[in-house]
């Protein structure tokens, strides 16, 4: 029996060392440790062993049993570890830098700039108003203190329609409607598309966006206007902006101003972008002309107000470095698909 036990141990050692994968361990376990396995058979034979040897042989068998169990555990652990490592090593390490693309949509650059401005103005208590693209002589000119034969009507070549109306040449055309809608006090902006009969080239478009704003209340002053324009533009450009006012002539404001901002590129030192002046002409503004307030049904003795016009298209060109204005309206997705708000 002792010799047999020894033989079984040797046979086990030989088979164990031949095992290559963790899956084979189970077969080995059944062969040696199973109910009908070799060690179980030894236990059955134990009853034939003379009594005086029983204790010794029994002990031997037990030792064998423990040995087989722990040897198998050890082997299994080692195999599993090796197998895991092999699996890891066989796994592909992914290359994120591959130029793979996901289809993305895009916003029109005007939408992006307009949203930004609308956010700023909403935060300062302005209504955002919409206005038609087609308007009439009264709203576009008459109510803005631009009477017939006024040179301002020559300055902007207007598209006239067979319906007797016209395509609005400036967002100021909405002033009268807004004054009548809200009365005073009022704070509102009105972004919109404007049209001028111009030849198109890299710098000129016949269809473009402006954003008009006005604020009417008791005691609105030039000082307020400057404060407001400076604050608003600092928000737009996300930095402290230096502004200066120059007299500017627009029939619907008095006094009227051209507002310049200190050049963003050279900070006022002078560069090609600002034609070496250090300043960029950005937006016309002014105190709303009393005649315009009157047309809007607003008491000019009680209320004053300011208005300003921002060129949204121009602002978008500045913001995104768009050199050719035709990008906006020609629907070329190679250009427009870049504006995806990332």
């Amino acid at each position, binding site marked *: 029996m002792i010799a047999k036990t020894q033989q079984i141990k040797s046979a086990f050692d030989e088979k164990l060392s031949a095992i290559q994968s963790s899956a084979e361990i189970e077969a080995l376990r059944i062969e040696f440790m199973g109910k009908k396995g070799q060690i179980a058979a030894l236990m059955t034979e134990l009853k034939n062993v003379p009594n005086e040897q029983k204790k010794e042989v029994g002990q031997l068998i037990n030792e064998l049993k423990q040995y087989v169990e722990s040897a198998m555990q050890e082997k299994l652990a080692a195999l599993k570890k090796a197998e895991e490592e092999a699996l890891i090593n066989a796994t592909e390490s992914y290359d994120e830098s591959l130029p793979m693309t996901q289809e993305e949509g895009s916003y029109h650059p005007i939408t992006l700039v307009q949203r930004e401005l609308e956010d700023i103005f909403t935060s300062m208590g302005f209504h955002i108003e919409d206005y038609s693209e087609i308007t009439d002589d009264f709203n576009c000119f008459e109510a803005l203190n631009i009477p017939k034969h006024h040179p301002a009507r020559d300055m902007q070549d207007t598209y006239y329609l067979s319906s007797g109306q016209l395509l609005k040449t400036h967002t100021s055309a909405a002033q009268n409607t807004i004054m009548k809608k809200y009365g005073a006090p009022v704070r509102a902006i009105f972004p919109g598309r404007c049209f001028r009969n111009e030849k198109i080239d890299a710098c000129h478009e016949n269809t473009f966006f402006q954003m008009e704003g006005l604020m009417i209340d008791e005691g609105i002053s*030039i000082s307020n206007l400057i404060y407001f324009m400076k604050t608003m533009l600092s928000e737009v450009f996300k930095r402290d902006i230096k502004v200066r006012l120059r007299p500017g002539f627009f029939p619907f404001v008095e006094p009227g101003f051209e507002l310049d901002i200190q050049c963003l590129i050279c900070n006022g030192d002078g560069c090609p972008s600002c034609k070496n002046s250090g300043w960029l002409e950005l937006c016309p503004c002014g105190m709303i002309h009393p005649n315009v307030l009157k047309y809007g049904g607003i008491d000019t003795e009680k209320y004053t107000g300011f208005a300003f016009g921002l060129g949204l298209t121009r602002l978008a060109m500045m913001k995104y470095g768009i050199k050719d204005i035709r990008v906006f309206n020609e629907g070329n997705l190679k250009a427009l698909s870049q504006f995806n708000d990332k």
Partner: protein
Amino acid sequence: MFVSMNWIRDYVNLDGLDIENLIHRFTLATAEVEDIIYKGKELRDVVVGEIVSIENHPDSKKLHLLKVDGGDRIYDVVCGAPNVFLNAKIPFVKAGGSVPGMEIKKCKVAGFDSEGMCCSESELGISDDHSGLMILDSSFVNGTSVKDIMPIDDIIFEVDNKSLTNRPDLWGHYGIAREFSALTGRELKPLTLGDLSCDSDYAVPVTVGREDLVYRYSCIRMDNINRSTSPDYIRIRLFYCGMRSINLLADITNYVMLEIGQPTHAFDATQIDHIRIDTPAEDMKFTTLDETEREIDTNTLMIWNNDTPVAVAGIMGGLDSEIVDKSNSVVLESANFDGICVRKSSSRLGLRTDASARYEKMLDPELTMTAIGRFVHLVKECDENAVVSSLVTDVYVRRYETITISFDKAYVDRYTGIDITSDRIYDTLVALGFIVDRQGDAFTVTVPSWRATKDVTLKADIIEEITRIYGYDNFEITTTSSNLFPVRKAVSKTEDNTIKDILVKKFAAHEVHSYIWCDGIKYKKLGIEIEDNVRILNIASPENSVIRNSMLPTLLSYTYENKGYADSYTLFEIGRVVDGTKENGYCDEVRRLGLVSFDKTAGEKTVYFNCVAIVRKLFADLKHRNVQFEKITPEHNWQHPRNTSAILCDGVKCGIICTLHPTNAAKLDKKGYAVCVELDLEAFNSIQPAAVSFDAPSAYPGIDYDLSLVLTDNKRFSEIAKAWESLQIAELKNVSLVDTYEAEGLKSITVRLSFSSCEHTLAMDEIQANIDAVLSNLKEMGITLRT
């Protein structure tokens, strides 16, 4: 417009002031200065030289070898000018000196030493005459700097004409001098006017025909003017200000115009007998002094001598009455014509002149006499033998009303938001020529005639005068003290934004902008006919004159043009179209969403259902509502007759979805398909969002029951669904499409009816009655189950 600082200094003493800084203040207070040019800066070591010896160059017919006395010594000079003569005094640049654009060095010219250069006027930069050397008066001492004998040094600044449109008074140096006077607080000197008295009682007869187009017509005759060349200072100032010297009389009329802004016209007096100002009775031809024959219509105001036209009023004189060098008598016209009439005539003729540009601005009629006074003064100054040979004829047809404005300091404070003292207000207005009656803080001002033609009429105009001179840079800036009000965005605004977000972020669509008119050329490529609609009357390209009535054709053009971008893409635009006219004849302008989805790799059906999904998503997200689709007859001939459907929500038609008519589809692409969606946003905005209702999810398992239905007669699913919808089964929670099957002419769909209860686990027998009812309804509709 170019402004000469030397000229300004004739009228304001600017000694001791930083001129560049002053010009900068002018930009901020008056009008934008675009450029500052320092004349004479590049002129160094240029002196009066005398040619003391002339030899011909041995090898050249053109060149001469000169000896020039430069005052300090004799210089050898090789010179190519044709007009050299002995003892000629000429401007001479010594080697080491310079003229504009040229450094003069000692060098060899054609084999001989040359130690300097003799100059033409053009080389000095004082005219464009480069025909020969400038010959100086023989009285000048050799070696004297030319800058001491001619006003070459000057600072010229260019003012943006656009910023002068509302300021007729600034179209001459004197008006600009007045601004500098107000800015510096220094006195504005008066203009020196000539003596107009005359021994004769002759006056040039003048008849004004069209009194509605003439404010004032003044004229005078002068004789015995024999000098033909203007003095250097006049020639140089004219040249620096962008004009050419022609002859004495023409130069003086130009000089007066540049000085006070009033255009005048010098007629050869021998051509003038009786002046009439009138429009022609019928269209005619007239040759202006630029030797161009022009068509004159009956709205153009003309100046006539008896019945012969001699000038286009306010624009240009005629060739036949032009002052030529031999004229020694002149009739000077100094008039004020209606600005609108001049502007319209000028644009009709395509002829803008310095005179017409000024008349357009509505000049001060008071200036006509000032101009005559200046003209007479200058002519006599240049030619002492010249005489005034007529009385002044002055037909003052219409006067502008005198404008007085009353205001007080409180008004100024309120409008400016800062505290400008009453003394400061007073000083500023007086400096600008207002007549000011001040009682403490109350003011009544009379607007000077040169600002009263249209520019200053209201209190608010006075504010501008006070503040611009005060300086906007000096304003203390303050926020407002307005009350707060809640601000809500309009539904249209928030919904536009959400629609864009969904389309861009969920459906990877691209937003584009397109024009409001139909593009004839682009439409033609796709075989899309332009439908009748409101037209633009004055668009440059007539094929684009019709306003669009749908967003889609242009978007289809953009789809066509982007085929190189990708195999599939969706583009959209929220814009406006005109849906015909309303009862009052005005355009019915409506806001629309247009969307075109294009795909070269998937079939039309796939693209179509993607678009259906987009539409459903928009309504689900914004309105929490289902939409219905209803086949309709196409509204446009490019739409497919079988696949054009109305989009309905809550019974309201909100738009359409369609595929393209095969003719147009073939033109768009051979392989790819486009599907179009157009939503009427006003209808969309008007739909109230449904409340979001909540059903607690059932804790108990439900039963799915699949039905495979054979479809016949092209029945739409929406009709079949009535089989169970009409029963309003409480436990029926959802219906979904499992499969569609098409083979051997048999078309069938499998739908899954999902039943569940919130109270308990449903048993089959509980819903069997419902299923039987559904089956019986289906049978009634003639729908059989697939076996």
